[in-house]
């Protein structure tokens, strides 16, 4: 930063960060505190609420059977769908390509709560019961654009002549793709997949509408526990989500560009 910028800038920015991170710090602190009344700062350290988390059938199901499963499936499927879509968009020129690209990123512009409501009413009309599959389909709509963005960014930096060279050396197009392009795209693919997982794992707006009684995702369960004034087990579950997401973001930052999110 240039020396002449105003002296108050740095303290201001640090204060803004403090506000940004405060809720996460408080949640983690509460999850280790002995008091059941969301006490901050906590008087002591205990793992009681984490034990309570693993003892609670509802929390364990929401975390491991719903959120984790849907997140992993969404990441895998979104990566396949998104990578193939990005390849089609970057490597080929066809009529209406830009319109298709806008259409593919449109889910990012649709307010999630409205998408959730629209999907709920659509499923209701088709008489489809809520399950992890209805949730997964909804999540794929909002996850795939992140993969498309990430893979597009990777592909743009990749010389198509590498693939052509492989083909002139006797590989067919499929071989050239799997032996040359795909390995070179690895880091943008992995970060796309991680983003897809995170978006699904932390989503609440779609899940509020698409989770059924047997498929309540972790954020939805946390939401209802807050409404019913639950105990710091909520904080323990939240801390686990914060740590998982923090680690994944760290991986993305290591291997690719973090700022592709927006």
């Amino acid at each position: 930063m240039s020396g002449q910028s105003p002296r108050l800038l740095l303290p201001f920015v640090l204060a803004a960060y403090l506000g940004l991170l405060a809720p996460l710090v408080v949640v983690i602190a509460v999850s280790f505190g002995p008091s059941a009344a969301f006490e901050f700062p906590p008087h002591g350290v205990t793992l009681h609420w984490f034990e309570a988390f693993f003892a609670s059938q509802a929390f364990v199901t929401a975390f491991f059977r719903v959120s984790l499963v849907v997140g992993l499936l969404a990441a895998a499927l979104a990566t396949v769908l998104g990578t193939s879509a990005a390849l089609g968009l970057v490597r080929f020129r066809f009529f209406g390509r830009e319109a298709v690209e806008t259409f593919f990123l449109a889910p990012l512009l649709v307010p999630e709560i409205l998408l959730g409501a629209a999907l709920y009413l659509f499923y209701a009309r088709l008489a489809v019961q809520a399950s992890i599959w209805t949730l997964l389909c909804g999540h794929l709509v909002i996850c795939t654009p992140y993969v498309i963005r990430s893979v597009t960014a990777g592909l743009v930096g990749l010389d198509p002549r590498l693939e052509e060279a492989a083909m002139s050396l006797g590989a067919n197009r499929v071989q050239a793709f799997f032996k040359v392009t795909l390995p070179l795209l690895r880091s943008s693919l992995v970060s796309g997949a991680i983003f897809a997982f995170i978006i699904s794992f932390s989503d609440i707006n779609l899940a509020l509408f698409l989770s059924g009684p047997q498929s309540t995702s972790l954020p939805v369960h946390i939401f209802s526990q807050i409404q019913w004034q639950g105990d710091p087990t909520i904080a323990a579950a939240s801390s686990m989500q914060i740590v998982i997401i923090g680690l994944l973001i760290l991986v993305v930052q290591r291997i690719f560009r973090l700022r592709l999110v927006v």
Partner: protein
Amino acid sequence: MYSGRARPIWVFLTGPYALFLLVLLVVPFANIAMYSLHPYSPTKVFLPELTFANYRKILDLYYVRLFGRTLRLGLITTAVCIVLGYPLAYCLARARARWQAIGLFLLIMPLMVSAVIRVFGWIVILGRKGLVNQALLVLGLEPVRLLYSESAVVIGLVNIFVPFMVLPIMASIERIPRSLEESAQNLGADWYRMFQRVILPLSLPGLISGCLLVYSLSISAFVTPALMGNPRERMAGQQIYDEVLVSFNWPGASSLSLTLVLVTAALIFGALFATRHAGRGEEAS
């Protein structure tokens, strides 16, 4: 570049996701467009006749207030996000690579954590026995009721959406060459003047897209107003949620949703137009 004519491979590559979006994005919205034109009946899911009653209902005082409150809170949230986010974006854009990496991590990590968790943190901070009230007690002051008010909602929304303001502004400041700042200052402008004449106008496209993102996200927020707001002063997202899942007034929810989608779309097109206009102004000058 391959020619797509012999075998249209791009169709096979883009087709699956296009089809997927058609079924799970276009058709569901067409479905609510259709619902919104049919009358609501408490006993029947679907009545065949057509009506505009669901849209006329939005002109009732209750809904006018609802939308007024929603759009107003969105504006306040956006304004606060500019004030907090712009300096942050400037610092991040001009920071050394190492600090920038740390700053970006600390900005994007909270963004990715579920909104419900961040709202939960604020409930602990602002609650009756929360951090703020404890501090007031220590200072010998009366505890205040902070939660379940409009200011609580704005605090929550700003906290959740401020990264969406920072990132686009940061991207456009990074594109401004540092030499431009230096030459303005060499020519005698002080920092504030340089900022006003160089940085601010050139970062306008980023600022516009940041405002747009934050505004359209806040007017469709649900979790924050539902958990931190006054239950009697709701925002549009809560009304939609209730009409879908609690009162089962699906035609009503559909017309509300479409109205909100149209507001968002109008904003996006308006801002796209403005950005393009601003971009052209830049090239001309």
